[in-house]
């Protein structure tokens, strides 16, 4: 029983990271129609910068904020390159983001090398329901939960959030009422970058980061996002948490080697079922 509680909490902590990456994908896809394959590299860049800033003696909090800010800036840069030119189709932009993700490898290896890095998070062990789990997992949950609440409030209750939703709901009508659709797309990339960056700085203390860690994040984040058809953030959140729990349960009761496979199998199943039902994930008309 205490094992199960431990796996669940650990899984929620890991899953919150996936959910953050997945939500970033969803925010960008909703507003721009682009599936952003550079999403994982925002997390990696943020984590690597945070490790450097902590190494330089900056206090916790400041260093992490610097990492998240870099994720946001990276998101904006990817957005400018991917959708900056008017008339770029979402399919073309997708390939551009894929290329930028690979370019990010080169930059990361040049600056930080190719060895795994990590940095200490919240130390100590918490005991809950008889389970002893590293306290940092609880910190991940404690930070991610208000972020998701904030996002829900932002999109439903602020005019800027409504304008972002309007772009995904009806691009033409958004232009008619005077919303700058391209600028909203860039804002979505900025938010997506910050969410990716937050995932990176939160999960690195429990999972080392290398330049190619983005693959695990993007596979899991995409699996989480695809559960909600890439358009529903709440389901991306639930999907991310579910994936995290499924993986720790697999690792705990089965073998640790199969964690990514869990995400892949889940993602493929969802995509096949959705394709059978609706004919695939529709690419929004621009």
């Amino acid at each position, binding site marked *: 029983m205490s094992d199960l509680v431990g796996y669940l909490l650990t899984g929620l902590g890991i899953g919150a990271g996936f959910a953050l990456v997945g939500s970033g994908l969803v925010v960008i896809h909703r507003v721009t129609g682009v599936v952003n394959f550079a999403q994982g590299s925002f997390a990696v860049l943020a984590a690597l910068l945070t490790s450097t800033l902590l190494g330089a003696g900056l206090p916790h909090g400041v260093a992490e904020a610097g990492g998240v800010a870099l994720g946001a800036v990276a998101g904006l840069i990817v957005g400018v390159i991917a959708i900056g030119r008017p008339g770029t189709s979402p399919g073309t932009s997708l390939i551009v983001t894929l290329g930028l993700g690979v370019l990010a490898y080169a930059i990361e290896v040049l600056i930080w090398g190719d060895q795994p890095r990590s940095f200490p998070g919240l130390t100590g062990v918490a005991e809950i329901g008889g389970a002893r789990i590293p306290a940092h997992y609880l910190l991940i949950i404690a930070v991610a939960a208000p972020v998701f609440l904030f996002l829900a409030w932002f999109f439903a209750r602020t*005019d800027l959030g*409504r304008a972002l*939703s*309007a772009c995904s*709901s009806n691009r033409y009508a*958004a*232009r*008619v009422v*005077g919303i700058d659709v391209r600028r909203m797309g860039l804002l979505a990339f900025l938010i997506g970058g910050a969410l990716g960056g937050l995932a990176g700085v939160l999960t690195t203390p429990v999972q080392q980061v290398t330049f190619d860690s983005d693959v695990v994040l993007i596979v899991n984040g995409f699996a989480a996002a695809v559960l909600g058809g890439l358009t529903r953030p709440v389901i991306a959140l639930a999907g991310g948490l579910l994936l995290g729990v499924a993986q720790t349960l697999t690792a705990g009761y089965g073998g640790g080697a199969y964690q990514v496979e869990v995400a892949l199998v889940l993602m493929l199943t969802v995509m096949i079922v959705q394709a059978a039902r609706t004919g695939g994930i529709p690419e929004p008309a621009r």
Partner: protein
Amino acid sequence: MTGVIEVRDLTVRYSGATALDGVDLTVHAGELVALIGANGAGKSTLVKVLSGLVHPASGTITVDGRLAQVPEGREMFGDLTVDDNLRLGGWRNGRKGRDTTHVYDLFPDLIPIRARRAGALSGGQQQMVAIGRALMARPDILVVDELSLGLAPLIVTTLVGHLRSLHADRGLAVLLIEQNARLALDLCHRAYVLESGRIALHGAAADLARDPRVAAAYLGGHVPVTP
């Protein structure tokens, strides 16, 4: 006298094909003007140019005052609420310009459905939201693209009544782009007839309604009997 909308010698081409060819059109302050024409005559192109969504090959467009558009097909933000749709209509006006009270005063029918998804409404309700959303921009001129399309006659009559009172009470100018020529000529002071991208006829709406060419092409061949 210059108008709120001054279009001079406007030409628009889509990848070689000419959609509008030397169009002149004026809407004066507080005037109701109709633009009628068949499908593909270039009506929608003119609307897109006026809203800045399409750039002309040549010619000038002067808009003096604030212009808001009621787009063809209503173009709701379908998964947002009626209230959100209206608020977004005031997007250009900043925070203070997004108070929806004046629209609900005008369309009390929208009050009970303000929290419903716009995509789930009937066509008539959506058209009301579309007009309300345009009014949120506090326009001097309303460009209404296909008011009656797909709506029941009774609902169209109600909407026409709303446009009439907006014009009478607030001095709102309206450019009505309409397939239903009879409705347009009945409501408006002046009218333009667009054919294959050119203005074929223009003049007082009452005169055009009696014009045999208009009657033959747009009013089902019947010249209305004048008393």
